[in-house]
């Protein structure tokens, strides 16, 4: 540790570094271990690129109007070229533009879905896990039943009930996703409720909420982060699936799912309409899954074997 040379008071940065020396060491070691797994690093890179695209995309796409309703019937079904990287669809819209804009939409919706699901799920899970008894039973039975419905059926039913469109789809998917987090957090709470450190905190008089929030919850954070990073890819897939079926994000708003569905009619002739959005989506989901996998290897000691 270096001593400051010029000022009288030691720099706060140096002090902070000293205070958190062991955590920094752990973080550095974790980063090193993460970087050894090239698949995870690859995933991280993809995610960063996608994030960049989502955040800035609409600003630099070549034909922004094509994502908001413009049609150019004279340019329909053009092959990929220098002016239209991914070609055009049957309404003459630039597929590259629409794919990029769809990235931003998917990101936004995906984030909202997960945030809502996590808030709801973690809260309910914490309550169920901490209080136990009938509260626990009620909450967990509902969770179990909701988790029984496989894949797309529940979101489909919910979306059909709530109507077509982006907002109902968001609701539908959030409602489908919260049980997973509820279960995760509940299990952790049940386990940790009996742990010594909780007893210690209570022994010194911490209130229930304080125990929940400051003590137990931080320990569940890694599990939530790992799950969220893996779920993000699946949330995006689910959203696109709804779009593919026809509920969910409605045209002309660009959505990978509906774009692919639309392009089916023109296969194999105008193959680019379906192929590019799908490939793009695949890469993004792959990136998140690789990243999530790598995070899980890193943060969850009992998960995989290395």
């Amino acid at each position, binding site marked *: 540790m270096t001593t400051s040379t010029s000022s009288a008071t030691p720099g706060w940065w140096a002090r902070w570094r000293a205070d958190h020396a062991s955590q920094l060491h752990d973080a550095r070691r974790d980063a090193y271990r993460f970087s050894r797994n090239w698949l995870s690093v690859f995933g991280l890179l993809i995610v960063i690129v996608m994030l960049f695209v989502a955040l800035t995309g609409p600003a630099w796409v070549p034909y922004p109007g094509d994502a908001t309703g413009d049609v150019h019937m004279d340019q329909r079904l053009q092959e990929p070229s220098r002016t239209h990287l991914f070609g055009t669809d049957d309404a003459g819209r630039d597929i590259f533009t629409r794919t990029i804009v769809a990235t931003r939409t998917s990101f936004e919706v995906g984030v909202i879905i997960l945030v809502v699901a996590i808030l709801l799920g973690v809260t309910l899970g914490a309550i169920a896990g901490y209080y136990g008894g009938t509260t626990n039973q009620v909450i967990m039975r509902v969770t179990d039943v909701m988790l*029984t419905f496989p894949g797309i059926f529940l979101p489909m039913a919910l979306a059909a009930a709530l109507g077509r469109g982006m907002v109902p789809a968001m609701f539908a998917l959030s409602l489908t996703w919260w049980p997973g987090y509820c279960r995760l957090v509940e299990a952790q709470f049940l386990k940790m409720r009996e742990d010594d450190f909780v007893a210690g905190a209570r022994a010194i008089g911490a209130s229930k909420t304080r125990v929940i929030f400051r003590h137990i919850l931080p320990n569940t954070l890694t599990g939530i982060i790992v799950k969220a990073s893996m779920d993000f890819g699946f949330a995006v897939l689910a959203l696109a699936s709804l779009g593919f079926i026809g509920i969910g994000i409605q045209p002309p708003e660009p959505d990978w799912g509906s774009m692919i569905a639309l392009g089916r009619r023109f296969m194999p002739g105008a193959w680019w309409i379906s192929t590019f959005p799908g490939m793009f989506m695949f890469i993004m989901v792959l990136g998140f899954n690789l990243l999530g996998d790598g995070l899980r290897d890193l943060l969850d000691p009992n998960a995989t074997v290395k």
Partner: protein
Amino acid sequence: MLRYVLTRLLWIPVVLIGLSLITFGISRLVPGDPVKLAAGPQARPEQIQKLAAEFGLDRPLPEQYLRYMGGLVQGNWGYSIGNRRPVLPDLMTYFAATLELTVVATIMGLLFGIPLAVVAARWRDLWPDHVSRMVAIGAVSIPVFWIAIILQVMFGQVLHWFPVSGRYDPRQSYPQTYTGMLLVDTLLAGNVQGFFTSLRYMFLPALCQSLVVIALVTRQLRGDLLDMLRKDFVMVARANGIKERIIWTRYLMKNAMIATVAMLGFVIGFELGGNVLIEAVFDWPGIGQYATKAALMLDFQVIMGVTLFIGVVVVFVNLFTDVLYRLVDPRIRFS
């Protein structure tokens, strides 16, 4: 063992009630007029009124639920606006097709996934392992409907190796059905050509559905195998001079099979999740397609019926696989 089965069976009605509560809840979630929704977008006012009375939507909620449950138990799962037929019988017919597809897809998935997992565990951290893991992660990241379309176009439209869609050759006469599952029915009737035709039509959709199975099985089984390899009995076997090859083919395989059965219920659940999209792409007449068409038309009763039905199916599948697991694992069977 018997006690376990009985206990589980006793719980099933409770779970089913839970499922129906959820579907009931969803159907009442509908913003706007549920009757209008059930009647469909083209209904006339008199029809709507009639339906309202029929559904007892003027009654208090709990009573509505009881009527709903009563109907379910008696076999009245609603009427489809789309084809004006009761939901349940159609459900059963469509389900046979989905069941067949799922069974074949599961078998395919296991046939690919188990060897991949074994290879990954055996040559851990070497290139076969990396390849397997990439395949597993890739398979789970691929948008199912997209890869379905690509395969359909490539192998169906372009190469003509497989039919593009549907379940059977429309030019041939449809086989006699006994169970609703064509592979079984054609064999029962001795219709060998029919059998192979069905198989050809089933190949691509089953392949797509098996992707998720491969992904899950490869990852989970690889992990389980690696866990087993660390166990002492492997060292003991080596210490006793048993050849590596025998350790793998005899010992670990049996452990691996048992582990596979343990995860079967979970895997099938995931499979069924993607089923809707696959049936949509390949025009496979199963419940997934029944549901998609209904979703587009907002044919509400069908959607609810299908959702409830699939939930019930999953419950029974889980029961079945749990029992199977208990039969297969000696630790549980003899204790």
